[in-house]
């Protein structure tokens, strides 16, 4: 009995609409071990975890927990089994105090009233272990993203789960936070807790895991103990990830040596950012790497006119400075494509309407008035070009995530973008569309756009960018290009703000 695995997942499948997310998933987690699940986002990790958390019901397949067959029909059912889950979006309450967040609906009562003293006593040691020195009575919203992530983990640990599931827990953590988290996880393992650790950072997964399962396209493709993993297999896992990215297209030769239009940023400050300087030239893809709170999203917001800058010394290729509003940005052919769909799309309108002149707001399209005929013709052209695979009259909201993202890209292509800002353009998109979108990004660069690409997935950055700027706590921590460009070094830059050896120099140069 005690030898049987704590969790056994067999042939689990799940599809949403027409998209198969989990096809044939198998997973065995041994008692008292840390099991890492790695795979690109879109491979099915998050869905697998939601199945185990009781948020998503599988279409078929069986799950055994603690040797017994289990149906996890609700989050409460998962909790009763002893499964504690920290999701990517951990579901916290930013307006409420930290303590209230830790004990939502599990508040210890004293004579029918909530006992703050007991809550503090119960959480104090745990918070200290996690290295959290925060005022537990302050609102959670006052904390940084890394601290919030640790609070979410602490909340799950407070329930003493037998199996702890972490979905990409370090996406908001810096190096020290990750180290501390690993120390805590190892301590818990020593006490006999089993853990499932999902990640798309192979390096981290290898550092902590006893066993490793690689998943791809909703299937488990490799499952092994950490020690048995050979170097060639490690390399193979790495390659699986690289194959997603198209080969770089040659930039237009006419542009190569001559005066290329460029975006020059010198000493930009605003939001969390201070003294940022770099140039991006037409035809190249400049990656922007940084953890949540590092200021990368501030940079994109500044360049797109969403926030005001404190110090703005920026020169766009058209000779002007920062746009003051988003409308101005669009008028000046600066566009932003974000992974948060919905803010770029009218869900309940047709594809054609979403691409129409009145919506896109471009000039010089002949008429100021909405013309359905023109809109449909334009939509048909873009649908053909981007392979959106729907009729122009289809409601935009009924498309898959990938399809919606393509409509957004099509919309911007129609105005002939000069500067394209990508903010996690492929978040939550299936593998097929992802590849197509990556290819589109390449094409845009090759046709003379200045492309800035931000992503939390380092492999996406290293796979697509010509060079990468790393941000750490509002500063440019360094730049890597060419053969230096690998995930490990990049991670070091964004997590600690410096690379080993020459890292300090890079940092100084960028400040100077």
């Amino acid at each position, binding site marked *: 009995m005690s030898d049987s695995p704590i969790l056994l997942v067999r042939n689990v499948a799940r599809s949403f609409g027409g998209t198969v997310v989990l096809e044939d998933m198998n997973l065995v987690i041994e008692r008292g071990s840390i099991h890492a699940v790695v795979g690109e986002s879109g491979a099915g990790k998050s869905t697998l975890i939601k199945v185990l958390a009781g*948020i998503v019901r599988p279409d078929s397949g069986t799950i055994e927990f603690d040797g017994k067959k289990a149906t996890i029909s609700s*989050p*409460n059912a998962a*909790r009763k089994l002893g499964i504690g889950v920290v999701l990517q979006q*951990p*579901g*916290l*309450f*930013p*307006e*409420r105090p930290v303590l*209230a967040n830790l*004990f*939502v*609906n*599990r*508040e210890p*009562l004293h004579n*029918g*009233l*909530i006992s703050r003293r007991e809550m503090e006593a119960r959480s104090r040691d745990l918070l200290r272990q996690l290295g959290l020195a925060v*005022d537990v009575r*302050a609102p959670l919203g*006052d904390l940084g993203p890394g601290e919030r992530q640790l609070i979410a983990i602490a909340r799950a640990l407070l329930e003493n789960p037998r199996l702890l599931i972490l979905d990409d827990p370090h996406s908001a953590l810096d190096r020290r936070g990750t180290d501390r988290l690993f120390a805590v996880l190892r301590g818990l393992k020593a006490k006999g807790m089993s853990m499932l650790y999902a990640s798309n950072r192979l390096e981290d997964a290898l550092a902590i895991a006893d066993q490793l399962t690689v998943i791809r396209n909703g299937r488990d493709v490799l499952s092994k103990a950490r020690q048995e993993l050979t170097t060639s297999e490690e390399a193979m896992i790495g390659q699986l990830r690289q194959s997603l990215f198209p080969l770089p297209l040659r930039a237009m030769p006419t542009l190569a040596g001559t005066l290329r239009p460029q975006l020059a940023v010198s000493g930009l400050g605003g939001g969390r950012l201070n003294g940022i300087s770099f140039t991006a030239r037409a035809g190249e893809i400049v990656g922007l790497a940084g953890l949540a709170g590092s200021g990368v999203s501030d940079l994109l917001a500044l360049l797109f006119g969403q926030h005001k800058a404190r110090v703005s010394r920026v020169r766009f290729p058209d000779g002007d400075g920062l746009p003051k509003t988003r409308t101005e940005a669009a008028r000046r052919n600066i566009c932003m494509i974000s992974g948060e769909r919905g803010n770029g799309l009218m869900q309940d309108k047709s594809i054609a309407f979403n691409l129409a002149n009145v919506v896109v707001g471009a000039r010089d399209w002949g008429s100021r008035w909405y013309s359905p005929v023109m809109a449909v013709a334009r939509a048909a052209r873009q649908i053909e070009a981007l392979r959106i695979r729907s009729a122009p009259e289809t409601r935009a909201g009924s498309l898959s995530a990938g399809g919606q993202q393509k409509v957004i890209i099509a919309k911007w292509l129609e105005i002939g973008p000069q500067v394209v800002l990508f903010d996690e353009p492929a978040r939550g998109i299936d593998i097929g569309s992802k590849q197509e979108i990556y290819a589109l990004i390449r094409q845009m660069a090759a046709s003379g756009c200045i492309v800035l690409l931000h992503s939390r997935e380092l492999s996406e950055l290293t796979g697509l960018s010509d060079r990468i700027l790393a941000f750490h706590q509002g500063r440019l921590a360094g730049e890597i290009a060419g053969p230096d460009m690998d995930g490990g070094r990049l991670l070091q830059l964004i997590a600690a703000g410096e690379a080993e050896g020459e890292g300090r120099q890079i940092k100084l140069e960028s400040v100077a």
Partner: protein
Amino acid sequence: MENHSLIQRLIARPEFGPFVLLVVEIAVFWSFNHDFLSPQNISNTLAFTVELGLIALAMTLLMTSGEFDLSVGSLFGFSPVLMWTLFNSGLTSLEVGFVAALLVAALIGLVNGWFVTQLKIPSFLVTLGMLLVVRGTALFVTDGFPQRTWSAEGSWLANILVGDFFIGPFRIYMSLFWFIAAAIALGYVLTQSRTGNWIQAAGGNPSAARARGVNVSGVKIGLFVLSSVMASLAGVISSLRTSAANPNSGTGYELEVIAMVVIGGTALTGGRGTIIGTVLGILILRVMRNGIVLIGVPGLAYNIFIGAIILGMMALHSWLERRHQAGT
């Protein structure tokens, strides 16, 4: 971080703004007309204040959970009409009529809650519809005429709810104690009980609350019932005190109550609420209404001041919010 002085911590509280406003308001009115703080005027102001206040207390909890209720004003008019109609027709005693009115109100709250949580219709539309249904029923039942109410004199129900007595020169109604008791009880519920945490969780992040096993729909339905019952109770209290049951009474109270709650610092979007703030908000608006008349501004100009206060307080809140965020 830890060594904020007591004063700094007081200033940081969301109730601080409304508190200052109330003090300034009272000082200004008093400087214009010293009768403003006379025992008689205070007694008069308090008498009606607590009736609207009862509704505002329940509304605070409801709005913290992310919903609001526009039907309270018409329930305020409908419940006493129902009670007196039952009593006058000889069908029931006054007490049974009272209980029946509260039960009907609870049922109306249940229907509101069911529409909002099960059919997922915004509370604005649901309670707007209910407002018209309830007001229409009150008018139809009475043909638009006020009900006879003079026969309640000396009934124990009337004594318990609105019996009056003098403390020194102050004429105090029993309803004041009901209000204080309700404020303390609901204040405790909101901040110290698990139910209160459910309410705040349901308003702050409903899906996260559900993922933690909070019965969000149940909480909201319960609060709709509470809001309706409190409005009904307030209506009955008011009708017993003034010996009137007019089917038109309570028109426009819903908006005044919501104004009281938001001025006190409760977020219209849910997730954050304060009973102390609401009590201050209630006093601010009622003192304003009373004081304006007393210093000789035409009573019809009252709404101008109320509107200005709401706009001013909202501007202050958003300014503080932005300053807070820029500081982190």
